[in-house]
């Protein structure tokens, strides 16, 4: 057992080495990743004065906020009402579908809309819809197990005391599901914020998100440490999500 514990911890450390290293190097006062030139904040200063990066981060945050709010809210209704296996299976299939196929299908659909109706949805709207398309089933799948914690008697009591269906949903069901709502919201937010492939297929050149900007450097090599600073910045949603998630979910056990 001790050997296994050491192995597991070694694995955990390994999982964090690349990311940790990148974060550390964003404070490195040298352009070369293998030379430590002392602590500096100059890459962050460069990042903050880089208008395009700000715009890209802002775009990502706005899209991710709207997407995660819509997906989680609708996801709660889906998880609460559509509990049968067949509905969940439809969402599960969507979750494991390869990203490229899905993204290409969505782009093809947007092209058809453009050809036949003349409405060009590529850009913010396309990105929003493409993100919603995969986060909605994701929220459904993630929330489904927690619906069991909403007891029938609480719902029936509320209904007998005269609350409407919608009122029961907002005053009884939602508060019980609040921690799961927060957890799912965070996962969806982090996911939408980081997604590159679906965004690339559905955006227009004028709408740049943080992953698109990062890709334009990453696909050509390492680039300048300012990019490390950008990447470190992009880690924040994932870290916050991870930190809060476990606390939120723990309330159910």
């Amino acid at each position: 057992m001790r050997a296994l514990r050491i192995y597991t911890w070694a694995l955990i450390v390994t999982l964090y080495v690349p990311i940790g290293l990148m974060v550390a190097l964003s404070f490195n006062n040298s352009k070369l990743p293998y030379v430590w030139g002392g602590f500096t904040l100059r890459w962050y200063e460069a990042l903050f004065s880089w208008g395009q990066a700000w715009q890209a981060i802002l775009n990502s945050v706005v899209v991710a906020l709207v997407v995660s709010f819509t997906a989680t809210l609708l996801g709660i209704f889906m998880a609460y009402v559509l509990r049968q296996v067949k509905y969940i299976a439809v969402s599960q299939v969507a979750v494991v579908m390869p990203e490229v196929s899905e993204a290409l299908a969505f782009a093809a659909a947007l092209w058809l809309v453009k050809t036949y109706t003349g409405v060009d949805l590529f850009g913010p709207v396309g990105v929003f819809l493409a993100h919603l398309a995969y986060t909605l089933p994701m929220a459904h799948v993630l929330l489904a197990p927690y619906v069991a914690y909403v007891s029938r008697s609480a719902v029936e009591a509320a209904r007998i005391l005269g609350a409407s269906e919608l009122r029961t949903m907002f005053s009884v069901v939602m508060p019980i599901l609040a921690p799961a709502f927060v957890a799912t919201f965070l996962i969806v937010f982090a996911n939408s914020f980081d997604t590159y492939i679906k965004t690339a297929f559905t955006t227009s050149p004028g709408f740049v998100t943080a992953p698109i900007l990062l890709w334009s450097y990453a696909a050509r090599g390492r680039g300048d440490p300012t990019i490390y600073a950008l990447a470190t910045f992009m880690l924040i949603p994932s870290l916050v999500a991870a930190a809060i998630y476990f606390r939120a979910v723990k309330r159910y056990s």
Partner: protein
Amino acid sequence: MIGKIALVAFASVVLLFYVPFLALGYYITGGGELKIPSFSMVATTFLLAVLTAVVSIAVAYPAAYYLAKWGSELEFALVTAPLWVGTLLKAYSLLVLFAIVERFTGVALWGTAAGVLVGMVYEYLPYALLTLYAAIEKLSESPVNAARVLGASRLQAFLRVELPLSMPGVAAAFILVFLFAMGEVIMPAVLGAWKVYTFGSYIWDLYFKARDIFSGSVMSLILAALSLLATYVVVRTIRSLSI
């Protein structure tokens, strides 16, 4: 009322997620010249995906076993958290790590299949680990205890009893990781520097470089069909696991 909202939400999943696949059908019926991917590219993708799955499972199994038997909440959280870091960020951080590794050991990983493999294992390890964890955690203690009482050593009990019992979980993890790896785009592009060419990169290029939606649609549908089949198999194995 809430039933209607749920149905509208469900309808939008179908409309936004499944209906676009019909658009692929539209472009396919439109016809065109099918650009068949080269054999070596399909072979590379397949080999990379198999290797990724095998290596991820081999590396993850002992840790999953430990977590399922004695793991603490913190350890579980630390293993799960990397799932939420985007693929692109992981790929980029590995790119930086590779530069350092190359400098100090002389081993060049950037632009090689080995580098892409490292990246994909790094990305899919948590998936393999969680799937294995779920399978091992469900195993009952009694068969192992029986084997121990009957005189098997700890190792024998593991090899002859627990390992075979956890095989459905291993199969599920294999299919899951294999499937994700087959459609991978980011790792081969960033870490393979477009030199390691895979099926995912091919679909990518068909759309972005060749602007050939027809061939892209055919390839996407093949990938999607493969995924449906694999999911069906996974669901079947997991179901048989719980019985």
